[in-house]
């Protein structure tokens, strides 16, 4: 299925979706954070999409917005898209968890919470998976400063 076909189908799934293929090999869909869960579950269940394999989930800090990038693949129909979601609130960023759609999101969301501080609603057990529970700050954010251990250019 070509990216245009995908775009046509996905457009009907939600409102205010942005599409772009600029500077990326995949079709990028930017989803408003309120619609994230509903669109993701439709992406998986829609008979012509069937995105059942989330092969990469990346936390991102586009200063000032934080966000998550989902690389999705359909093991049956062999097409791929990228879903992006952004959240502007840096103090208390919150997104919906998609672990009930792709169970791999469970661990990846833990990693993103650990390094970017994005909280996920309905996540079964949100905790710091790599860092110690008392760690302050979120290291992969661009404004994270650790004067002792980081070389700042």
């Amino acid at each position: 299925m070509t990216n245009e076909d995908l775009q046509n189908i996905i457009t009907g799934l939600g409102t205010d979706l942005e599409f772009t293929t600029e500077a990326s090999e995949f079709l990028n869909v930017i989803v408003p954070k309120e619609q994230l869960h509903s669109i993701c579950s439709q992406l998986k269940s829609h008979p012509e999409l069937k995105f059942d394999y989330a092969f990469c989930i990346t936390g991102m800090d586009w200063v000032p917005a934080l966000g998550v990038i989902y690389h999705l693949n359909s093991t049956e129909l062999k097409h791929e898209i990228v879903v992006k979601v952004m959240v502007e609130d840096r103090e208390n960023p919150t997104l919906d968890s998609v672990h009930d759609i792709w169970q791999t999101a469970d661990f990846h969301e833990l990693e993103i919470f650990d390094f970017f501080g994005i909280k996920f609603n309905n996540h079964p057990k949100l905790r710091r998976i790599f860092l110690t529970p008392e760690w302050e700050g979120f290291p992969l954010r661009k404004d994270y400063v650790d004067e002792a251990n980081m070389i700042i250019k």
Partner: protein
Amino acid sequence: MTDQQAQNKIKTEEYFINMGPQHPAAHGVLRLILTIDGEIIKNVEPDLGYIHRSIEKMCERDSYQQIVHLTDRMDYLSSHINNEAVCLTVEKGLEIEVSDRVKVIRTIIDELTRIASHCLWWGVMGMDLGALTSYFYAFRDREMINDIFEETCGARLTMNYNVPGGLMFDIHPNFVKRTKDFITHFKTKIPEYDRLLTGNVIFQKRTKGVGILTKEDAISFGVSGPTARASGFSSDVRKHHPYSAYDRVNFKEILFTEGDTFARYQVRMMELWESISIIEQLIDNIPEGETKAATKAVIKLPKGEFYQRVETARGELGVYINSTGNKNPYRVKFRSPGFSNLSVLNHISKDVLIGDLVATMASFDFVIPDIDR
């Protein structure tokens, strides 16, 4: 007496036990917090980060050439494939087409790396199940591969042989001959492996029907590599998204449907034969050509996002580079196979014995730095 009390006449209590961070079955500093009832496992909670070095953060500071050698330290058993993943991503960004010679050499070394990694896994799997001898058999053969690597690139484990645009230098003159010698030698050794472990009744009893992972779960949990293929999930990146010279060789993607520990074992054992076949197809006619395309001293990727997937010995490694056009990447994400594979461990280890958990973990072939990064 209520129903609850009647059922709990003989009352048992669950307790916690720490498997790791220092534990012989953890193959590194993996800590599993087990909830156990008697010897039956009720819950497995991995606690990671004991060897986390924040490679993704370090990448944001380094130049593209420097990133390559950081990836050696992730999955150190497929270091060459990790290097290649970064190089391919950068080459994709720069739109460089490397010569055929580079592609073929990369592929041969990839497969040698895969054999070396599977050898180590085989030895350690035997050791985890209590058969210590397999470890030494495997290391005998793995040493030969390491010697070949050492001759060509000077390192045995963290090779750092790839650079963006090709290879650091050409292969050693002995490379072809020694690789062929190794293939002839190794073909006689795999049946030996089978005689020692595969056919053993105890081994089969320990592994068959243990830790069953269904295809649906494998896809949903993002499991990849031999672990996924044992469940029938066709996830071989070499087949679906060929890179380097994989589009010009014939090889089978090994698929099993049982999804148990023994199937995972068999997939890897049969992959050894496939790797041998790939090397045999390529080793005799390595094309002539440049080993390194001309790149600038300071590589600057154009603005954009680049994603490249490769098949390491453990599964699908994804490299995501987000560039703003600077000499450093804006964000680098490594989608490591081990991290996703680990996430399924709790799901398939409910209500099994401690021994089964050890067998399952061994068949997943975890490398902890790959999980922690």
